[in-house]
């Protein structure tokens, strides 16, 4: 059976930025032979209803990610510093800070 090409094409991760100034968010992935076609495929698959004002496509292999095994120690520095949160600081009752 002829099943030419297809996923011989590299995988690209797709990020869409919604209207209204939000950040680009991961939407999914597409297969495409080059960046230009990856953008076109991403437009057809992920933005059929005005979901985006900007699109990024990134070769999936170019993404460097943390691993679940690292999770505890890697994120530790941010997890044990209660003094980085406003709730750490006392305010007299009845006073509105903001």
């Amino acid at each position, binding site marked *: *059976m*002829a*099943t*030419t*090409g*297809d*996923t*011989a*094409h*590299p*995988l*690209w991760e797709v990020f869409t930025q919604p209207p209204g100034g939000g950040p680009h968010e991961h939407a*999914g*992935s*597409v*297969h*495409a*032979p*080059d*960046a*230009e*076609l990856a953008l076109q495929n991403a437009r*057809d*698959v992920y933005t*059929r*209803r005005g979901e985006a004002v900007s699109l990024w496509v990134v*070769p*999936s*292999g*170019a993404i460097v*990610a943390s*691993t*679940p095994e690292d999770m505890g120690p890697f994120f530790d520095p941010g997890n044990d510093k209660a003094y980085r949160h406003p709730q750490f600081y006392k305010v007299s009752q009845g006073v509105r800070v903001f």
Partner: protein
Amino acid sequence: MGGAACERVRWYFTDMPYEIHEKKGSQPKDKAPAPAEDPKRLAEFEARIARDETIEPKDWMPERYRRQLVRMMSQHAHSEVVGMLPEGNWITRAPTLRRKMGLLAKVQDEAGHGLYIYCGTETLGVDRHDLIVQLLNGTAKYSSIFNYPTLSWADIGTIGWLVDGAAIVNQTMLAKASYGPYARAMVRICKEENFHKRQGYEIVATLARGTPAQKAMAQDSVNRWWWPSLMMFGPHDKDSPNSGDLSKWGIKRKSNDELRQRFVNLTVAQAKAIDLTLPDPELRFNETTKDWDFGAIDWDEFWRVVGGDGPCNRERLAARRKAHDDGAWVRAAAEAHAAKHAAHRGAPSGAAA
């Protein structure tokens, strides 16, 4: 319509759009039993499920969880792809430009839904290419509701209203599935399915308030699709062999029977509002449970169709293969284009363009 065999109609169907039901005791082919899991890791995993945490692609997961997801998600993706065929048959015959635009957009959405879910399935370490080969060579399953013919224009309306309506009930539940990529694809899909259901209901409602012949066409269509739509939710809970793992691990958060009841309860009022009847003399409101009770489903027919004996199985696959082969030049052209531009830039072709 694919061809004459589709006109040979038996009107009771099938199974649920994405999860293909295997008969109790049937053993999936060429699958070694899942290996025994490390009890400590399994306990941690199940604790995460119990805390409603989302499982992500790189997280540890039991092999059986991974396999069940690959099975369910790839069958769901195939169903979206094959689902384009019965509706695609009516694009050239849509009665107005408005209807044609709506149907084109809906069929394009189904292609998109297939791609969202293939993309999610690939996060489990399978290759979309292998899944597509399995679909084309007939070893993969897809929902057998798409093996039934669309005989009249009213069927396009009824598919949107009842089949997509049933899909929404099911997919709303799957949007809370424990596997992140699947749940996120479902959220995206559910938004689009609402358009599908409303365009379908509008078609049926328009026919129902049209001429007597149009109303009869709508009623005939509802009569043929009602029971199949109920079967889409799959066997009764007690006969559903995969449901145990799927619910234990938070992939399915409601049972087949619960979802089916919800669909019936929603649909009765919708039928009444457009003055059509549902073909079940036993349908009546139960004051105690506040549910609409309904008659018995023909499960013999269900298993027969799941087993491959539907009216359009061969034609659907033939149409899908032809579409794939006819598209070969597009893929070849895309590759040639990419290679040419890469050469211009003096860069090697491929992702690093």
